């Protein structure tokens, strides 16, 4: 079985050498997601696709994957036009896609998941497990086909999807924001794997928001903005990060970017305590346990929370927002036990920006209903008169928070992820907050949106609100926070003042306590990522 096709130069009759699109157009209602895209991907190359939220990257990928069908324009393989009407067409043409969100079914085992796609409803192919293992081996990692997907880490799940793609003889593999969900070491392992695939004549395309990641790991780079290609570079001619940002964001420029030079963080000892957590242990339903958590957060400070995802961040957010009342230990809001604060008041005082939009918005409701959601549930009923009020408020918030929606009557489910996040932020920042819990608020956001979120966070803190800010980007945490607490396995592994917080010190705390394993590549400490030629330009 030719697991990695074209691994020898004489692949099947010279097919699969290039995958290109010409004049690709795709509308969603009145939104032009792709507006005449021309781009070509070659085998044996790693090609990065860059662009803001809503630039049309995911749409392009979904067209190539057969999830959407283009309104006009054509897809060519080796110069021959092909039709891709559904995902199985794409697979037949050797195009494999690893989507942003895992398409594996958690309750099923690895081999069951793969056989679902391979054979449909037919009997289980007994050789499949063996083929899967050997495919993984050739790709350079280990895989246990009988383990249940729900027990795997996100990185392992991604590798399962990649192995699955190569079972189906993929000649091109397209990964949509593959690193968003990965810990730093897992990212390095992934890029090691992608380079290896390219060296075996596979065409690799990946989408990312991280410029440095793109610069360091790709031979070619294409930048999209508003559905069109605005830049295309070979490795030798890749411009600076700053130049790339300008291309992606365009004439809008980076109004909020001055924030990068953060004014000296204030660790004023006189500011009063907002929240005190003492000795909290135990786990919320479906959560992981916290162990003896002690934490004090002052008014007007941004407390960054670092840690590999799944080490207690969700549980800490549930604790801080009062969604979970622990059996052991206490949590007090300005000296008052949080469990004694009535729900309505709690919702007004404790802001919550969850990382999963399923906890944050109701997709079937309009923008204005989502913006006014807490208020309508607790303080002000939605009478016809107030409806006018809420819609007016929402119109202002849409302007203030730059929410891209046709109108406040548009459904939130129709907005892009970044805009949904803005809706949530708009709602939460409209309250009289004592504390805001922001869980990965910039995850998946483009550069400009992320800068805005960081600016809103700082402004909120300056107005006296305590902010708990979680992020997987250590540079971002250092930039935004006054202090950084590192979570590892449900414990606070350490709290660092800004002076002592560096990527190295935080990374050591994160890794020392979690023991993240790197598969398929040398162990790389987070500091290793600092080696980029022009690393300090914009991000840090």
């Amino acid at each position, binding site marked *: 079985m030719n697991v990695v096709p074209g691994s020898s130069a004489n692949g099947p009759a010279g097919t699969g050498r290039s995958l290109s699109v010409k004049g690709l157009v795709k509308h969603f209602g009145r939104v032009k997601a792709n507006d005449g895209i021309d781009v070509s991907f070659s085998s044996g190359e790693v090609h990065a696709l860059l662009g803001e939220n809503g630039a049309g990257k995911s749409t392009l990928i979904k067209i190539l994957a057969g999830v959407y069908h283009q309104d006009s324009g054509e897809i060519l393989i080796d110069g021959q036009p092909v039709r891709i009407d559904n995902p199985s067409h794409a697979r037949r043409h050797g195009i494999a896609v690893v989507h942003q969100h895992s398409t594996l079914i958690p309750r099923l085992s690895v081999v069951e998941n793969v056989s679902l796609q391979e054979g449909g409803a037919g009997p289980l192919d007994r050789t499949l497990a063996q083929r899967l293992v050997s495919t993984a081996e050739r790709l350079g990692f280990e895989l246990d086909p009988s383990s249940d997907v729900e027990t795997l880490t996100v990185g392992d799940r991604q590798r399962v999807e990649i192995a699955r793609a190569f079972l189906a003889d993929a000649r091109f593999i397209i990964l949509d924001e593959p690193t968003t969900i990965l810990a730093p070491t897992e990212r390095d392992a992934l890029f090691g794997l992608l380079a290896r695939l390219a060296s075996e004549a596979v065409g690799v395309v990946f989408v990312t928001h991280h410029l440095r990641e793109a610069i360091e790991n790709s031979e070619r780079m294409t930048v999209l903005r508003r559905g069109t290609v605005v830049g295309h570079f070979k490795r030798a001619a890749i411009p600076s990060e700053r130049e790339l940002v300008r291309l992606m964001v365009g004439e809008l420029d980076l109004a909020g970017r001055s924030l990068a030079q953060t004014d000296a963080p204030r660790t004023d000892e006189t500011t009063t305590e907002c929240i005190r957590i003492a000795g909290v242990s135990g786990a919320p339903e479906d959560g992981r346990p916290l162990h003896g958590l002690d934490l004090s957060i002052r008014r007007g400070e941004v407390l960054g929370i670092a840690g590999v995802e799944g080490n207690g961040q969700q549980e800490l957010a549930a604790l801080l927002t009062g969604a979970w009342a622990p059996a052991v230990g206490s949590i007090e809001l300005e000296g008052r036990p949080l469990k004694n604060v009535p729900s309505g008041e709690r919702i007004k005082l404790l802001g919550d920006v969850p990382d999963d939009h399923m906890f944050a918005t*109701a997709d079937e409701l309009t923008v204005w209903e989502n913006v006014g959601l807490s208020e309508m549930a*607790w303080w*002000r*009923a939605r009478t*016809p008169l107030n*409806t006018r009020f809420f819609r007016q408020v929402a119109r202002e918030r849409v302007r203030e928070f730059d929410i891209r929606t046709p109108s406040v009557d548009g459904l939130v489910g129709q907005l892009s992820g970044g805009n949904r996040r803005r809706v949530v932020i708009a709602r939460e920042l409209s309250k009289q907050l004592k504390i805001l819990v922001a869980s990965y608020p910039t995850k998946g956001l483009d550069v400009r949106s992320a800068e805005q979120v960081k600016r809103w966070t700082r402004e909120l803190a300056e107005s006296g609100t305590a902010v708990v800010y979680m992020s997987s980007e250590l540079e971002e945490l250092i930039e935004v926070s006054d202090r950084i607490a590192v979570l590892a396995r449900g414990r606070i592994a350490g709290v660092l003042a800004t002076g002592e917080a560096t990527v190295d010190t935080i990374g050591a705390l994160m890794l020392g306590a979690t023991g993240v394993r790197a598969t398929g590549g040398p162990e790389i400490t987070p500091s290793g990522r600092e080696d980029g030629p022009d690393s300090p330009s914009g991000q840090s």
Partner: protein
Amino acid sequence: MAKTPSASSVALEPDGPQPGLRPGSDAPLARYVGSAVKGTFWTAGALIVSLAILAPLLVAGGANVIDGYAELFSATFGSFFGFGLMLVASVPLILIGLGVAVPFRAGLFNIGGEGQLLMGALLAVYVTTAAWGGGPGAFFIPLVVGFLGGAIVGGLPGVLKAWRGVNEIVTTIMLNFIVLFFIQWLLTGSLRAEDQTFAASEAANRGFRLDRLVGGHLPLGFVIAVGVAIVVYWLAQHTRAGWRQRLVGLNLRLSARQGISVPRQYFVALALGGGLAGLGGAAELIGNQFRIGPNFSPGWGFTAVAIALLARGNMLAVVPVAMFFGLLQNGESSLQANLGIPGNLVLALAAAPVIIVAAVIGYCSYRRAIMEPPDD
């Protein structure tokens, strides 16, 4: 309608640019009316299509299609008396339909309308056949008692669902049988009136019965049912409590994060739904049948599920949809009597719009599922 995601996703939004320009968006009265119209728009289409489906059924029943339709509609629209009969028939349908629509809005299926209405009617029998003969306004007492009876029968599955996670579909269905057989057992003994040939209770005292207004053509029960529908609509649309129920029905995880007690909302929704169905049973008892017997309900508890589904969770739309079913019920007996068409054929007609609407809802959510929003 254009095939855009925004049009297909709700199927209710008007097309075209609409920045804050939904019809009557800011005028309260227009919003009320607009809401009811919107809620019935697709349903009306489904009902018309299903009337067309009736044609071959009429032929199969051995009747002329035109005659059949004429008979079906003239039973209601042929006379004030016939129209009044339709209104009477729609009273329990409206109230029990609301009893399904309320939990439906919170994401729950109440299939126990049958048991709840029977319990409401049973308790209403006890208070209206007691020593006191009633008087002006006394009808209020059996209605309240009926509501409470239904609320208990609906509240029990509510408790089980909210705090024990027991599937409410199973518990509400099973309670139907418990209440029905309990009443049948009562009818073999203490409840049975001695002067009746068939098993039936004593008749409600005249002082408790619902009058007919406007020269005997407008049943008071109908006025009450519509009033209740408006109140329930107002509670659902314009109160914080109603909004919380809606959020629970739309997104559990979001609701919990917003400090809303999901168990409490579940309990309230099922108890209130049961209460409304019980109210329907009591209203039928004092407005129409006056006695409870083994065949007190021709299956309203299940028809109500169809009504709530066709009204698509809109409390006001329940009224016209229930009236349509009242019209069918009315026409059924007259088709049977005058044209010899089996009444069950007409009941088959009732199923058609349900299937159509269910298919439309299913298609819309399928479209929504595959038409993801633009990604980042």
